[in-house]
């Protein structure tokens, strides 16, 4: 048990620390890397909770794909981030005030009563015990039956996002030359080869490229 406790704190501190560094680091590429570190630590926390499927999916999807895209974009961006941050401090007073108000509200809410942290007893559909069913199967059992609509709905959302992204950025370029394999295949020697008689020593009959 002691090992698990230590691991939990290592991972939890790692997650929070990396999260802080995401917004604190000056270089956006480093931010993305800290984000990845945060994902990793959370995946570790998932594994400790016995949710290994979620942990792996977190890594495959977020670390393996989403963060790579972030990195891709950040690396390509030509933004002077120091310049972007120049006006940052002038918003500090108002931002700080709002932050303090929110913090005070949260403290008041949470201080006015104890937060129940025990798992509620009136859970509608309790999760199956982890030693009987692998959590991949447990997730599949509800995801494709009870929550089938959520699954499909999320699919529609992604479809709309994809169609929208393409439709809003697509433009038909007329100034590029594309390879057209059909034309290349259909080309015959008559169209491709030109026989020219060149006078020996004569200049100007052959156009150079």
């Amino acid at each position, binding site marked *: 048990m002691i090992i698990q406790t230590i691991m939990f704190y290592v991972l939890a501190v790692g997650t929070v620390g990396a999260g802080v560094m995401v917004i604190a680091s000056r270089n956006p590429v480093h931010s993305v890397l800290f984000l990845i570190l945060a994902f990793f630590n959370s995946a570790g926390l998932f594994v400790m909770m016995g949710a*290994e499927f979620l942990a792996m999916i977190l890594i*495959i999807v977020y670390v*393996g*794909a989403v963060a*790579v895209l972030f*990195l*891709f974009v950040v*690396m390509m961006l030509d933004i002077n981030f120091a310049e972007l941050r120049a006006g940052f401090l002038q918003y500090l007073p108002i931002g700080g005030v709002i932050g303090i108000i929110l913090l005070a509200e949260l403290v008041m809410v949470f201080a006015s009563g104890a937060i129940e942290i025990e798992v509620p007893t009136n859970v509608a559909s309790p999760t199956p015990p982890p030693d009987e069913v692998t959590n991949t199967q447990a997730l599949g059992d509800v995801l494709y039956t009870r929550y089938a609509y959520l699954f499909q709905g999320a699919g529609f959302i992604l479809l709309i996002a994809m169609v929208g992204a393409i439709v809003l950025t697509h433009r*038909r370029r007329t100034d590029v030359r*594309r390879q057209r394999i059909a034309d290349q295949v259909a080309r015959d020697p008559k169209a491709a080869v030109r026989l020219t008689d060149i006078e020996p020593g004569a200049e100007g009959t052959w156009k150079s490229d």
Partner: protein
Amino acid sequence: MENSQLLVFFLSSIGKILIIVHLLLIGVMAMIWAERRVSGWMQDRLGPNRVGFQGILQPIADGLKFLFKEDLIPDHVDKPLYVLAPAMLLVPAMVTIAVVPFGSSITILGNEIPLQIADINIGILYVLAVTSLGVYGVVLGAWASNNKYSLLGGLRSSAQMISYELTLGLAIIGVLMLTSSLSLREIAMAQGSYPWHWNFLIHFPAFLAFTTAMFAETNRLPFDLAEAEQELVAGYHTEYSSMKFAMFFMAEYMNMIVGSTVVVTLFLGGWHFFGLENIGGPVWSGLISFGIFFVKTAIFLFVFIWVRWTLPRFRYDQLMNLGWKFLLPVALTSIVVTGTLWIMTNSRLIVGIGNVVSAFIVVSIVAGLLVMKTPKPAIQDSDENSHQPLSTQ
């Protein structure tokens, strides 16, 4: 678990880890030698044959040379990331092997020891997760080098990885559906002793898609756009030298080996071969199964080298077209067809035939659309400018 069992588990695990990691490292050296010799053979020349018998010690000589070279860190690099990058590439390549079953099992002193470092129930997801990390080594090395050729290599690599990872993940779903398990050991065991029971026949299009995507993930020719030396000097590792460069180099070969073991496990029947794996006692059968697995992997690695010297490098738009317009639809179709036919007929034969037919249809449709829908160029060809280079998007 009893204490003695725990001890056996502990010791056998350490033993397996040591053996496998060393096999992997030796395998890398063997691959480097094999690649150079096979290349020589294919190109009708000799290849390295001076150091040791038939040049077999050449990789060791190379390694020593790398070790003794000066460890240069250029001034303009992002130092922590520059140092981290080779490790980020090498470590994922190495740890993937942990879940791959490399044989059935050996019984020593009444204790059955499975020939696999860790049989976790989400093995294949672990493989996908860890291999997806490899791209960071490339991208970080590229970015940290602070060199435009490196950066271009890194960008190409990240775009390529994202495009092909989808196929990699989708292509195995048919296999998972029929096995109804994510554990690599169970997937290997579910395939019978004879080649017609193996997954590559049942999921032939998915097998091809997976293999192609794996070539792309390992950054090997014909997918080595990230380091295309004619265009980008050496791509993402332009600024690297000595042992750091060697780590990039090793990671590439290690990725190939690990990828081959995964393909063998998923599609080529794992350690099965005409019942040969059942011969002999509890020890010998395990060792034979390991041998079978080893040979299959080696054959597949030969295919890697073969392809390298057979196919030229893709152009970038061809790479994207292949990934998004052919492999991805094929992988998706194979999921739908496998699921539908399996529920309807419960017959592996019909699933196999259906997969091939549907993949053929999909590829024909896509190819037809590509040929018909490519817009006519606005710039009309004429004899005068027909020699301009094709610009591509």
